[in-house]
């Protein structure tokens, strides 16, 4: 079988792969999405939920760049909750339980409808190369697909091994074969591989759970959606159940620890601290006699329940025992046992900021293969790789994201600068500029980028520009009107009587002041739409801090301006410790700001690199 020639070939139809393929296609290049089966597209290997803290930010950013994850999640959402609702908007994260079936159907529908995008079924087993340049893939049936850029997003499939207790077998995830040939091919590139693991809980039959005594957690009354394009939900809504492990559960687990794949010594890979298995929790928090479990429906019409909080690699009979020890689950039937999976990942320090692999022309990596965990992290990387592979085909500048404009930039920088020691997951605390990088203003930060790249739909563009218009004029009205403390007091706003005149924006930052309190004072504001009102409030709340951070961002930009050439020889700098030299050679920082963020970097080390950079530039000037 002979396929036509593509610009970009995406290998893997998971969350990274679909987002990458859509991004490349939106950029206008001819794109193929190659995956084992058409039915892989939109599959959630683990829990049926999208978003959360930090992750919700990523989904909003993907959406602001006109990606697909947010739109599909809105369609599939069966319970929406805004996490941290009672904290500042900067740390609020939208989250939704998703109906697996709807998610898959909708993702497939969008993918089939996307212009420039063709789905190809098959397993990639080899790369086509000319010199050191990749220009296609070979499928297991021998067919060849030619393409100028390849994005590999094979998730947990590279040399994947599934463990249930002391039984282990090769597998990419439950029910799928691993990709071994491809991994072997990559060995030839001398790619630095590592081993990681992750686990998933047993799935339960919801009809066999006794819901009567359990607390139920409904979604929010006014759901917060992911996409800036949407304002209403479409799927029927459900509640999650809540139950707890108890001392008997913990006893059963303790007694059988040696039979757990993880504790029995069958797994070498490192697992995530953030999403520990129940074995881990029982051992590490032995003083706690109970852990919370969310019983999450996998769909509005699906009886499968995902018990969030008890992922495990214990043998099946032990899983039966401990599940039945839990209140409400006494008679629960296990539909699929929990398991752990161990897989290869590529040390992301060998990637450039555009997610291309250094040393192999034309190959990009995105998703779990880069050491991350989670759908949102995968999709966000897919976006970066997709945009960049396409930009490169079109001879355009790389599309680089920075720590100062997005969580996407934070993640890419973290990965490429310091690598990973455990599966990497996004948190709001990873973003030092999180007061500016909010879920609510992702469009203000990133949609202009997608517009200027020419990969933004007309609908989004119009909606965005009109919103910016309204925001702009409302803020202008607020900023250009000033009030004395007396005037404010007469409007019922308590401020210190210091005689200082304050702008409407200043006043809006006060804890108890809302847009509605101010609106009567200013003409023309009573017509402002509710979503614009809320947005202006959030912008006002953080205005002074964002102003302060701007100075910091400027300083960082200055350091980013000291670009370190790719052939810069760190090992020849005398005075750098060998440890730092090794780290620098692995990471090959793009600029001085990135170098500063390498773990263990010292001021003297930075001064040294800076001095060398200055010397090299002045030498070049002299030679010219």
């Amino acid at each position, binding site marked *: 079988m002979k396929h036509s020639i593509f610009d970009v070939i995406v290998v893997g139809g998971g969350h990274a792969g679909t987002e990458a393929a859509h991004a490349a296609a939106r950029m206008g290049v001819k794109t193929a999405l190659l995956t084992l089966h058409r039915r892989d597209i939109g599959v959630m290997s683990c829990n049926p939920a999208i978003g*959360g*803290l*930090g992750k919700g930010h990523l989904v909003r950013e993907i959406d602001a760049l006109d990606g697909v994850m947010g739109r599909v999640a809105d369609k599939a959402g069966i319970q929406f909750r805004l*996490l*941290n609702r*009672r*904290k*500042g908007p*900067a*740390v609020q994260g939208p*989250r939704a339980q998703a109906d697996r079936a709807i998610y898959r159907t909708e993702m497939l529908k969008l993918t089939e409808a996307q212009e420039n995008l063709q789905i190809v079924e098959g397993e990639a087993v080899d790369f086509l190369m000319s010199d050191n340049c990749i220009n296609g893939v070979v499928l297991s049936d021998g067919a060849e697909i030619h393409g100028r850029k390849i994005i590999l997003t094979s998730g947990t499939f590279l040399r994947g091994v599934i463990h249930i207790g002391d039984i282990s077998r090769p597998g990419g995830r439950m029910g799928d074969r691993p990709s071994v040939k491809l991994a072997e091919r990559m060995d030839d590139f001398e790619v630095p591989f590592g081993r990681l693991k992750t686990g998933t809980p047993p799935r339960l039959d919801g009809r066999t759970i006794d819901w009567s005594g359990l607390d139920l957690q409904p979604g929010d009354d006014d759901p917060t959606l992911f996409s800036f394009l949407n304002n209403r939900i479409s799927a029927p809504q459900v509640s999650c159940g809540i139950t707890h492990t108890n001392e008997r559960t913990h006893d059963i687990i303790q007694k059988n620890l040696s039979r757990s794949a993880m504790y029995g010594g069958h797994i070498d890979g490192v697992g995530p601290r953030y999403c520990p298995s129940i074995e881990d929790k029982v051992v590490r928090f032995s003083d*706690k006699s109970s*852990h*919370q479990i969310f019983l999450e429906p996998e769909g509005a019409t699906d009886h499968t329940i995902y018990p969030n909080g008890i992922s495990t690699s214990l043998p099946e009979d032990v899983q039966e025992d401990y599940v039945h020890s839990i209140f409400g689950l006494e008679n629960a039937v296990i539909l699929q046992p929990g398991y752990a999976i161990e897989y290869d990942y590529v040390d992301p320090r060998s990637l450039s900021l555009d997610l291309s692999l250094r040393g192999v022309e034309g190959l990009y990596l995105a998703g779990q293969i880069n050491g991350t965990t989670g759908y949102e992290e995968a999709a966000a990387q897919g976006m970066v790789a997709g945009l960049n592979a396409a930009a490169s085909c079109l001879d355009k500048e790389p599309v680089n994201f920075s720590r100062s404009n997005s969580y996407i930039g934070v993640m890419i920088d973290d990965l490429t600068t310091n690598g990973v020691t455990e599966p990497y997951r996004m*948190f*709001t*605390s990873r973003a*030092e500029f*999180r*007061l500016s990088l909010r879920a609510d203003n992702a469009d203000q930060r990133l949609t202009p980028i997608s517009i200027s790249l020419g990969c933004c739909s007309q609908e989004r563009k119009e909606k965005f520009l009109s919103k910016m218009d309204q925001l702009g004029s409302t803020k202008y009205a607020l900023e250009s009107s000033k009030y004395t403390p007396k005037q404010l007091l007469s409007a019922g706003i308590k401020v210190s009587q210091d005689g200082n005149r304050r702008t409407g924006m200043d006043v809006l930052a006060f*804890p108890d002041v809302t847009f509605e309190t101010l609106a009567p004072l200013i003409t023309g504001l009573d017509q402002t739409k509710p979503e614009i009102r809320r947005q202006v409030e959030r912008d006002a709340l*953080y205005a002074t*801090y964002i102003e*302060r951070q701007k100075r*910091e961002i400027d*300083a960082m930009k*200055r*350091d980013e301006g000291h670009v370190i050439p790719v052939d810069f020889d760190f090992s020849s700098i*005398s*005075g*750098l*410790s060998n440890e730092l030299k090794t780290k620098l050679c692995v990471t090959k920082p793009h600029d001085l700001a990135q170098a*500063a963020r390498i773990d263990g970097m*010292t*001021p*003297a*080390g*930075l*001064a*040294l690199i*800076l*001095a060398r950079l200055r*010397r090299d530039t002045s030498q070049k000037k002299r030679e010219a």
Partner: protein
Amino acid sequence: MDTIFALASAQGKAGVAVIRVSGPQAHQAALQLSGSSLPRQGTTLRVLKDQFGNPLDEALVLLFSGPHSFTGENTVEFQVHGSIAVISAVLQSLSEIDGLRIAEPGEFTRRALENGKLDLAQVEGLADLIDAETESQRKQAQTLLSGGLGVLAERWRRDLIRAASLIEVTIDFADEDVPVDVTPEVSGLLSGIQADLQKEAEGVGIAERIRHGFEVAIVGAPNVGKSTLLNMLAGREAAITSEYAGTTRDVIEVRMDLAGLPVTLLDTAGLRDTDDHVENIGISLARKRAESADLRVFLVEKGEDLTIEMRDGDIRLLPKADVRENSEIAVSGKTGQGVDYLISHITRVLRDRSAGAGVASHARHRETLNSANERLKNAQTILLQGPEYYDIATEEMRSAIRSLEMLVGRVGVEDLLDEIFSSFCLGK
């Protein structure tokens, strides 16, 4: 990398002068000047010759191999006779070697920094050490030089990160079983750090005194023997004395080492009402300097009204002890009677004050410590508003952490480098 050289000892005539060469060609240059092979390490006596073989001077040649040298590079030190002519001849010969150039001010230290031999605060400490005249100055510089400030900043930074992480858990793991309100705990941690920062910042004033010297003013009416006392303490005729009242007009300063503490003694014009225009100028100058001095020694009669306020630590003595009957506390600049008592009083007071000095000793340190403290004060206020404002509270804490990182040059290296090195002189 260029090889640099400069005179490392003070300018001018001296017994011995040290010329330092550092860089990849340093050993080669030593070879060229001394004409014969040298051991890779240690001290050798050689006759230095210029490129035509004319002898310049007999010198001790000291070779250091990088990284075991001050700069971390290959280094040579020539100890030559401290004659201006010899020095300039040797410097001239060095400059004629290809690839060698005269060092910029502070360049040796800059290279030491760049080669990881010193951190930024250590560099400041080094500048202080070079300028140190007394024991307390030396000690203070030494603490800075050994990285004391870096250690402190790192500790505060770690404590702050720990405090912030208590809040971050409530934010990033909100959907798990974690505490909701951690305000009391975090607030307690911050208070501890704030107290430390404040103490350290306040110590900067004292530390600066130790660096620049404490001022001790002698005040009193004309003719009580102020100038005579100053001369006695200084051990030389620094001020004119005479039996005419109103002899001293200008403020006379004498720097001295009082039991290891740097002290500047001020002799001032005698205080009285007068119509003499020039004397009046002197008197108002005397008042001003006495007010701003760290300590005042009053030479006054019993019951005499003081026209300058006496402050904590000041001392009041009767003048001309030798011509008095009673054995009250008095001092005589003529015979030295009571002078030991006076000195021990001054050193006791100043030593007590010096104990308040910490490692931070520069205005730059104080500013950074204060700005970090300011942020923490804000954080405290915001914390009290509850979890709803935790994101802003942590921003204030992060800002404080950043200030501390700037203290040791972990961020903003470029500006800091330039600022610090601008205070260095040639050859260091």
